[in-house]
């Protein structure tokens, strides 16, 4: 069994590296295809031919794209992310400042959203088609149907402007204590929780409900086991696989998909950094953030597969 896991991990990691290479190439082509470059983007309205030419010379942008890309790849493979084309800060430093913020936000939201949506999903399956089930579905589905910036503004209007429980903008910095950090990021965390809960909760409910017609559940019922126990100990263990997949997908989204929430709450995270870098056509920063995001996806997908495998005894012990 260990062999099988190891083989899976090794195979996935190799594929993951291929994915990263493909993504770096796609990102490069994408940003190159956008009009203008870092020089014209920085100068904006005040660009002129001689200034742009001087800027190209200074940043060595007069060399072919392929040469620049290969050079970046060689450096990146050695762990050197390069310097931002705009203000020449080390990309590693810029990202280092923000990656912690992004993961803090994602982990905080996940710590609330995952248990809450699992519990609600189980309860909804238990009391399916009841008033409770329907209202929970309605609330969480509204959360996912409304755009996240709208949820953000509503929460801001209620909790920051009207009642002043939490600050309207989350300009956290490294000098803050954990309590201050939690207070400052309460609203973005809440927004993200509302945005991801529905998906996980619905999937938990659906996969449990689909198992409820299985013969072994019938058997358990006939044995007179209480419904709650049936769900938690009989249905849930077999329902884990799709739930885990959805949880991982949402966790990945919490890291890479929160740009708008970051902008609305002025939260210094990676998403806002990437958008900034794309607008400025700052290729090294765009590539580095894209690599981080892609890695998050690859790793979480791998984790999802491993956990699914481990949660399923039939897959763990093949004949």
């Amino acid at each position: 069994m260990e062999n099988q896991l190891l083989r899976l991990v090794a195979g996935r990691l190799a594929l993951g590296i291929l994915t990263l290479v493909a993504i770096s190439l796609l990102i490069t082509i994408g940003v190159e295809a956008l009009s203008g470059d870092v020089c014209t983007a920085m100068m904006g309205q005040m660009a002129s031919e001689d200034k742009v030419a001087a800027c190209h010379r200074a940043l060595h942008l007069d060399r072919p794209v392929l040469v620049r890309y290969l050079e970046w790849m060689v450096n990146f493979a050695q762990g050197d992310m390069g310097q931002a084309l705009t203000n020449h800060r080390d990309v590693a430093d810029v990202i280092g400042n923000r990656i912690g913020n992004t993961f803090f936000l994602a982990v905080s939201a996940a710590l609330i959203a995952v248990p809450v949506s699992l519990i609600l999903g189980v309860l909804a399956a238990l009391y399916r088609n009841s008033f409770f089930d329907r209202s929970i579905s309605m609330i969480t589905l509204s959360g996912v149907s409304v755009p996240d910036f709208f949820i953000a503004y509503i929460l801001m209007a209620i909790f920051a402007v009207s009642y002043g429980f939490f600050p309207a903008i989350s300009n956290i910095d490294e000098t803050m204590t954990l309590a201050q950090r939690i207070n400052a990021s309460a609203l973005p965390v809440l927004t993200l929780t509302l945005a991801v809960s529905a998906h996980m909760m619905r999937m938990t409910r659906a996969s449990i409900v689909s198992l409820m017609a299985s013969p072994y559940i019938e058997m358990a019922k006939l044995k007179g086991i209480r419904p709650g126990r049936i769900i938690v100990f009989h249905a849930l263990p077999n329902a884990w696989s799709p739930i885990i997949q959805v949880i991982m997908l949402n966790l990945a989204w919490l890291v890479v998909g929160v740009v708008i929430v970051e902008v609305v709450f002025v939260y210094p995270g990676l998403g806002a950094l990437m958008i900034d870098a794309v607008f400025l056509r700052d290729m090294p920063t765009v590539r580095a953030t894209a690599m981080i995001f892609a890695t998050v996806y690859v790793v979480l997908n791998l984790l999802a597969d491993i956990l699914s495998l481990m949660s399923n005894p039939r897959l763990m012990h093949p004949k």
Partner: protein
Amino acid sequence: MSKIDHEIRKLQKRVTNGGIDRREFIKAATAMGFAATAPALYSHAAYATPKKGGTYRVGFGGANTGDMLDPADNGDTFMINMNMGGCRNALVEVSANGQAVPELAESLEPSADAKTWVVKLRKGIEFHSGKTFDADDAIASLEHHRGEDSTSDAKSVANSLGNIRKDGPNTLIFDLESGNADFPYLLSDYHLLMGSADSAGKVDWASGDGTGAFVVKNFEPGVRAHMVRNDNYWKPGCANFDEVKITAVNDAVARTNAMATGQMDAIVRCDLKTAPMLEKKSGVSVIQVSGTKHFTYPMDVRQAPFDDNNVRMALKHAIDREAFVNTVLRGYGSLGNDHPISSNQNYHAGDLPQRQYDPDKAKWYLKQAGHSSIDVEIAAADAAFNGAVDATQLYSEAAKAAGVNIKVNRVSPDGYWNNVWMKVPWSACYWSGRPTADWMFTIGYKAGGNWTDSFWDHPRFEALLVAGRAELDEAKRNDIYVEMQTIVRDEGGVVVPCFANNVDAASDALGRPGKLAGNWELDGSRSIERWWFK
């Protein structure tokens, strides 16, 4: 508090904000029954004395992760405020009255033809690092923007400074190519800040070392900056806060919320939609100062149909300026008269009749051009100015009555300045304005200029531009600039529907000078050094 007390407070607040002057205040206060105490009430509001202390938390927009402390690259409020009003000084600053006054310079003396300027520098001014500021620093700081390899946003301004040489450690001599009576204003450009030069004549801008009121402690581009007072600051009554914490809040709604919830002591550029609500909040003042920023629709006059001045005049009469100011600017602005000189600038042609929305006149001009109706297209994106797409729709609707069919071509805001502006025959645009008429005309209207977005070439205008620049006689100069504004208004290729006011917000706990500068937002981008906590 009685109603009348409340009213007089409101009136005092307007004095503090620079909204009304002494005469208006005393008149209004007398009407309320405060005849005897009116002068004292005025002084209290207008001449509050700065106090030291406190942490100033201020939110700016236009920040990004590519920002740097090199002023050559600065172009929006976060960096301009941090650099110019924060850690550095220029040779000249613009006062609240719009005059160029010496800053790190002590005096500026022109020759009779305004071609040679002798600039004496203040002695004994020290950088944060302890080094004494001298002519070598000044030359290195100015030369930084010039030369073939310069990518500075101030390249053209710096190039117009002519040959710069030093005469002793505290004197600079500028030999201009042609006379320029506005020379001191050039040195007030927010890019032309003074840094400390090493022995090779290079300035390490990233260090943040300057002569300014505050010392940079921490700077995270696109996120925040933390500065502490320079106890050694030389300018009297300035550098009042103990610390300054600048936060980058690019979203206007988020900025306004942060102000409303007390997370900020001041913000730049309120969200105009919600500004009236913010105004009602106690403890917060919305500060409105008329500035030089204006919105424009430049036409390429080399291309048909814009090559015909009758068509241009028809288009200028087909825009409803009042509606423009009321909807796009929500009233926080004033009407434009198809020239770029705002009413608070020197040499503004105040007697020139205000151009109005007049479909009949527009039709008449169209007829002169030989058309009964005309189809044109404007490219617009909100990169040109906030609300540009809606504003252009409004233009299009109003113009229909004149037989002008404007198709609004909504384009991507990303890359707007590279791909659209000055590339298509007609587009939406904005100008932050320049402190002098000469500068504005030179950068935006001079034939063959890099940014002459109408590609206009008018011989009389060109002759006046040269004559006006070197003219030291104020009356003659005024005549020249009035004539130039008239020519641009009636023959130019740019529709200028409005001037936008600077609309900022500040806590009432802050003390501010009686009159605020309008050349940039938040007191000419100098609230950091000029303001204080009451």
